[in-house]
């Protein structure tokens, strides 16, 4: 280019173009629309985020899973008995098909072979549609025929093969017209291949084994297993009581240590309270009121909370009228108690016993409030000694965990109030987020386009009748319908998608109607009819691409709305069962404990916010890109 900069820009005349000089092949319509969208920065960012969500939607099961990627079972003498992948064995048909599709589809799309990108995209979409239809039909039929219970029928080998392969063949028969390959035999072979494979996978994974991740962790500790774990080694349902409400960026060992420390601290605090609340108040040397009692407990538990600029507990006690002798006794007590906890953390029972004895000795110098007070203080002192072994056990357990691989595991985004890893749940929730948005909006666009095109093309009484139906559906509040449905229908994602899709189609129907009213009088539509094209070709092949863009913009906002609806429902606790969801995580922010866990609010909240933002930004950019006012006249 540098040489041409000196010369003037080279131009060609229309005659050159007529002769084919400098003629560039025009981009097809959709490729051009896509190009116009992706050159925009906002659209790029939105697509990147959606791409990330989509990536995790497909690969979450192999990225965040508590089951080992690979495990080797060892015998007592270190021989390998078996080696297998528990993770792979536990995958559902959906997981497997998505993984395969994700990997093979990407490879197919970027493989340098002489095949149009559009065609490849079409093949991938067709395969996805076929597999998706089969998986959903098999699940639905199975639910209808045998329900959730494990019955004799559902376990029959013949039944499962009959159901899966039968469904695959029916779907293949119904959808073989999908324009995958031009020659008819190509279509049949492609459709059969995809369908039979899907059917095979569905039958093979009729019941995915329920494997407990803890079994492999225990096995590793005992030396019976050698495990290789995934990047985020937590299943979204995996939990231990010690992990309840752990903050982000803590390891499992940290959680154990924290529990042990809390136990010791609780013991010390129990003793401190027993002393302070059972002493005889003395107005001159030991005035006990709310303030001094709190200060004394603070002094004893070592939780002095000294902040720069504030007086220490002792100074405050002194100024409150506690005599110096008493303060000295309490300081001694505090010192011995701190020795006690240090000894336990240092796993030294003898020192701990000495410290406990010293505590009892020193506390004897104080005057109890009465007989009951004396007994309570004595009991507390005895408890301090009795529980030493138990508390040392906790600490040593924490240390043992810290030395294992398990102990080194991170809770990158913390855990929820019932001890499940937040990051793992968030990754698994990506699938719900993507699918609820795309499927429900896809359904709504499909219905909207069909109804809207009929309204717009025919007008007259068809328009009149369908418009009333549209108005009826517009009056249905989606969220309330979903809440009602949650109480009467099975609570799963499919029902949710269908409801959202079947109620929100009115927008696209009205857009399409308006576009078709404009288009039907255009010459090219007349010319379609003059050429003798059948109605479906005129409507959906010729008119639809010319009028669908406003609907796509609206659909982009619709996806965001569907995600919000799902999150809202999950937040209200009416979301699908057995499935992680960002909304469900949000609802656990204050959880059953009532304590605000900031990480439970921030991370899922940010994920929902960014996803909705990404779809909205994409929609905005799409609208700008196709807006005829912002586009220079192309024809």
């Amino acid at each position: 280019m540098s040489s041409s900069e000196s010369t003037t820009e080279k131009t060609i005349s229309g005659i050159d173009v007529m002769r084919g000089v400098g003629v560039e092949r025009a981009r097809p319509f959709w490729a051009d629309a896509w190009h116009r969208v992706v050159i925009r920065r906002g659209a790029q960012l939105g697509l990147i985020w959606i791409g990330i969500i989509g990536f995790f939607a497909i690969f979450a099961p192999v990225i965040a899973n508590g089951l080992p990627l690979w495990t080797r079972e060892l015998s007592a003498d270190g021989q390998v008995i078996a080696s297998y992948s528990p993770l792979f064995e536990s995958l559902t048909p959906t997981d497997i098909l998505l993984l395969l599709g994700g990997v093979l589809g990407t490879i197919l799309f970027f493989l340098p072979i002489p095949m149009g990108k559009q065609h490849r995209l079409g093949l991938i979409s067709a395969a996805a549609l076929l597999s998706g239809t089969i998986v959903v039909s098999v699940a639905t039929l199975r639910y209808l025929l045998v329900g959730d219970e494990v019955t004799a029928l559902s376990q029959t080998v013949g039944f499962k093969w009959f159901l899966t392969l039968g469904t695959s063949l029916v779907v293949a028969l119904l959808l073989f017209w999908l324009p995958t390959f031009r020659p008819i035999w190509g279509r049949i072979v492609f459709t059969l291949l995809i369908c039979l494979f899907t059917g095979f996978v569905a039958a093979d994974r009729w019941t995915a084994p329920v494997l407990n991740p803890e079994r492999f962790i225990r096995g590793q500790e005992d030396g019976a297993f050698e495990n290789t774990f995934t990047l985020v080694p937590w299943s979204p349902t995996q939990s231990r009581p010690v992990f309840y409400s752990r903050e982000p960026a803590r390891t499992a060992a940290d959680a154990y240590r924290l529990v042990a420390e809390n136990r010791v601290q609780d013991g010390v605090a129990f003793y401190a309270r027993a002393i302070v609340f059972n002493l005889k108040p003395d107005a001159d040397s030991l005035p006990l009121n709310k303030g001094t009692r709190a200060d004394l407990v603070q002094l004893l538990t070592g939780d002095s909370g000294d902040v720069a600029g504030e007086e220490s507990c002792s100074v405050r006690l002194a100024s409150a009228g506690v005599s110096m002798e008493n303060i000295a006794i309490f300081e001694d007590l505090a010192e011995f108690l701190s020795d006690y906890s240090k000894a336990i953390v240092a796993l030294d029972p003898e020192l701990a016993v000495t410290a406990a004895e010293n505590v009892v000795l020193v506390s004897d110098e104080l005057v109890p409030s009465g007989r009951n007070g004396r007994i309570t203080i004595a009991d507390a002192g005895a408890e301090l000694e009795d529980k030493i072994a138990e508390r040392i056990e906790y600490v040593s357990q924490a240390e043992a965990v810290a030395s294992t691989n398990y102990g080194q595991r991170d809770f990158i985004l913390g855990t929820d109030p019932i001890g499940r890893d937040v990051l793992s749940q968030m990754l698994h929730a990506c699938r719900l987020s993507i699918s609820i948005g795309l499927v429900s909006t896809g359904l709504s666009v499909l219905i909207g386009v069909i109804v809207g095109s009929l309204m717009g093309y025919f007008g007259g009484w068809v328009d009149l009748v369908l418009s009333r139906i549209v108005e009826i559906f517009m009056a249905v509040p989606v969220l309330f319908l979903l809440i009602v449905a949650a109480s009467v229908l099975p609570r799963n994602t499919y029902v949710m998608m269908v409801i959202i899709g079947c109620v929100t189609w009115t927008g696209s129907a009205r857009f399409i109607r308006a576009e078709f009213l404009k288009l039907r009088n255009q010459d090219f539509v007349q010319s379609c009819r003059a050429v003798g094209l059948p109605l479906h070709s005129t409507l959906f092949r010729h008119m639809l691409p010319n009028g669908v863009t406003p609907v796509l913009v609206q659909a982009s906002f619709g996806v965001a709305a569907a995600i919000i609806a799902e999150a809202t429902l999950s937040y209200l606790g009416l979301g699908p069962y057995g499935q992680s969801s960002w909304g469900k995580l949000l609802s656990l922010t204050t959880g059953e404990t009532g304590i605000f866990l900031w990480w439970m609010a921030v991370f899922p909240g940010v994920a929902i916010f960014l996803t909705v933002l990404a779809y909205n930004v994409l929609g905005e950019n799409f609208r700008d890109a196709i807006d005829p006012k912002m586009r220079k006249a192309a024809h």
Partner: protein
Amino acid sequence: MSNSQNDQVLDPNVPLLEVRDLAVSFSNPSAPTSPRVQAVAGVNMTVYPRQTLAVVGESGCGKSVTAMSTMQLVPRPPGRFDRGKALFRGENVLEFDEKRIRALRGNDIAMIFQEPMTSLNPVYSIGDQIVEAILLHQNVEAEEAVEIAVKAMDDVGIPDPRQRLKAYPHQFSGGMRQRVMIAMALACQPKLLLADEPTTALDVTIQAQILELLRDLQRTKNMGIMLITHNLGVVAENADVVCVMFAGRVVEYANVFDLFDNPLHPYTRGLFQSIPMLRDIKHRLTTVEEVVENPAEYVKLNGFEKGIVPWWPDPPKGVKPELADPDEEHVLHEIEPNRWVGVFRSEHAASHPSRVPDLKYRRPDLQVEE
């Protein structure tokens, strides 16, 4: 699909299209109580193979509706065929069901629209659009269809047709797009081409090229053309038979030379007088109104004294004869052999029914041996 056996035997002496007493009316959907608009009220015309029938008349006189009726392209409702027939090779297309009419459209009768800029779908490439029509009507493989499309593009004079098939409508100029439209219409080798103002949107040089092209194709493919236009120059140059329409009725029907030499209807005369002549120096042109409002124009027909008076919706006072039936005031009357004029339906005109307009005439260059 294709009736290949019929393709060869297109007898030039058998009419291709006979429109017989066709009447089409429209309702006003936004005002259902208002009376129906009679867009076409009893039109007769005949098209032979290798013949160009020019239909002229002012906007709204029913030219396009007549043409579109022969393909059932008139939207119904609000449109309605009140009476009459449109016989394509002897069969009344107005009675065809959806399936038969679809097989007819594009295959036997094709149509070119006046606006090339909007008549092509911007979403698909030229090739996609032509090939779709070919695959629809002809029993051929995709590769053959592409070859046919290339041939059609070549026929209409588009350079480098194979590459141009992959181009999109916006990459073409208006004239080129009109050629594409024609190529699309011709790809299935229709027997009748309805050209609805095919050159109105084009400049004069392109106009001439397109018309010459149509004429060429007519010569090689024996096609009949119904040419709808406002342009009398185009008519004079290209038409064989001219049908002048006004208010949904035929007012004059003759071969092109007779008509231009001696227009018989005041309206036709008015049209001709309103054309500027290069050699004439005139302060202003005579308007159609001036001619049709002149009572002297109405007495020139043979048989005026017997009540043969050119029909006009509101004629000057005193010229309107006694009608045979007050509800029917127009009839197409053969004034002299092969000259038809729309006249008032007086007793004489009603009692001397003439044959329907039917002219096999072609210009010398398209003459066929009888």
